[in-house]
């Protein structure tokens, strides 16, 4: 049984890899940090594959592991001992005059300015398209808490991106 579930998890993780990288990118911002985060999460998920229960959504399970790894990393950053370097992408900011690049920068900068919990809510629901119930489970909060974080994160992003409510009227 354990052997089978490990194989199932490993195959499932392979299919989820592109989404895991996208989710990590919404949290970590730079591609390099995001892939470090993805790597840590994959290693943890494989080490604990037998904890995944068939019937439980594998994406939610592993997103939860990504979230926890990210929180651990935030804590260790706060202790002043960063595991990741963030120079690589930081140096490239604004180098390309292409429009696509500009849009990317402004959305990413706006995301980076959100409080962590709002950014998670936005990433899980608006980017990953998860139902509220799954997103709330991953964040280990009630649905009401999730939706209020989501509403605040949305509003803040819209203001930062120049699509605030005030501009509508």
């Amino acid at each position, binding site marked *: 049984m354990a052997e089978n579930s490990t194989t199932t998890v490993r195959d499932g993780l392979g299919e989820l890899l592109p989404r895991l990288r996208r989710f990590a990118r919404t949290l970590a911002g730079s591609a390099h940090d995001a892939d470090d985060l993805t790597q*840590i999460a994959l290693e943890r998920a494989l080490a604990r594959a037998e904890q995944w229960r068939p019937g439980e959504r594998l994406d939610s399970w592993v997103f939860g592991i990504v979230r926890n790894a990210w929180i651990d990393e935030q804590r260790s950053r706060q202790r002043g001992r960063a595991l990741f370097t963030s120079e690589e992408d930081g140096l490239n900011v604004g180098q390309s005059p292409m429009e696509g690049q500009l849009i990317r920068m402004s959305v990413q900068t706006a995301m980076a300015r959100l409080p962590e919990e709002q950014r998670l809510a936005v990433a899980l629901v*608006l980017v990953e398209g998860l139902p509220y119930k799954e997103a709330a489970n991953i964040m280990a909060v009630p649905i009401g808490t999730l939706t209020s974080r989501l509403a605040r994160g949305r509003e803040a992003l819209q203001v930062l991106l120049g699509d605030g409510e005030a501009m509508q009227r």
Partner: protein
Amino acid sequence: MKISEEMLMAYADGQLSGTDHDAVEAAMRTDPEVAAAVARQQRLRARLAEVFDPVLSEPVPDRLSALLHAEPSIRDDVIDLDAARSRRAVAPTRLRSWQWPAAMAASLVLGVLLSQAWLSRTEPALVMGADGALLARGELADGLDRQLASAPTTGSIVTVGLSFRSKSNGICRTFVLHRSADVAGLACRTNAGWSLPVVAAMAKAHGDGMQPAASDMPAAVLAEVDARIEGDPLDAQTERSARDSGWH
């Protein structure tokens, strides 16, 4: 029906069904403000998708896809005895008699291979216990007994990264044993002494005797900490009193 902001968002997120869903759509047809508010939510989704969806079609870096092809426990130079044991435990708990010899042989071979390769090559401070668990001996056991994560002794051969209480209510500690190649691992207190669920060779990072952060630990060790920790790591005072009472 008055459409609340909350309902608008739930609609935009595809979370409404039945009458609520229909009510929002009816309001969108008659109230331009509702229609504009929904459109505004859709614009935000579209901008996020424009930025983050291209990640989905990027080639996946080799270091990530390689993880999913490798055998987890014998990968690199990580020795994860728990993983090895859990693979052996795949066999049903009540074995038919004819299955015994093969199962026993498999477990012996695995134990000998891991321990002898490791012990003969590098490390006299690690020994295989009677039940197949790896145990700390000598300098490592001394270091684990005495060193505090909160007050590291300079020049000691053992540094402790963090101490915590595990879900099974014992004390566990991450450590680095400073040798020619550093060895990092997790030690958990048992009746037999310090049992080592995971040990990994580590790239030499600092060389200045700096206390390693928990985040400097190899991922296999971190994963083991993650799976075992109950609550937060011990603070300085709790760690000291745990030591003074023999780590119980």
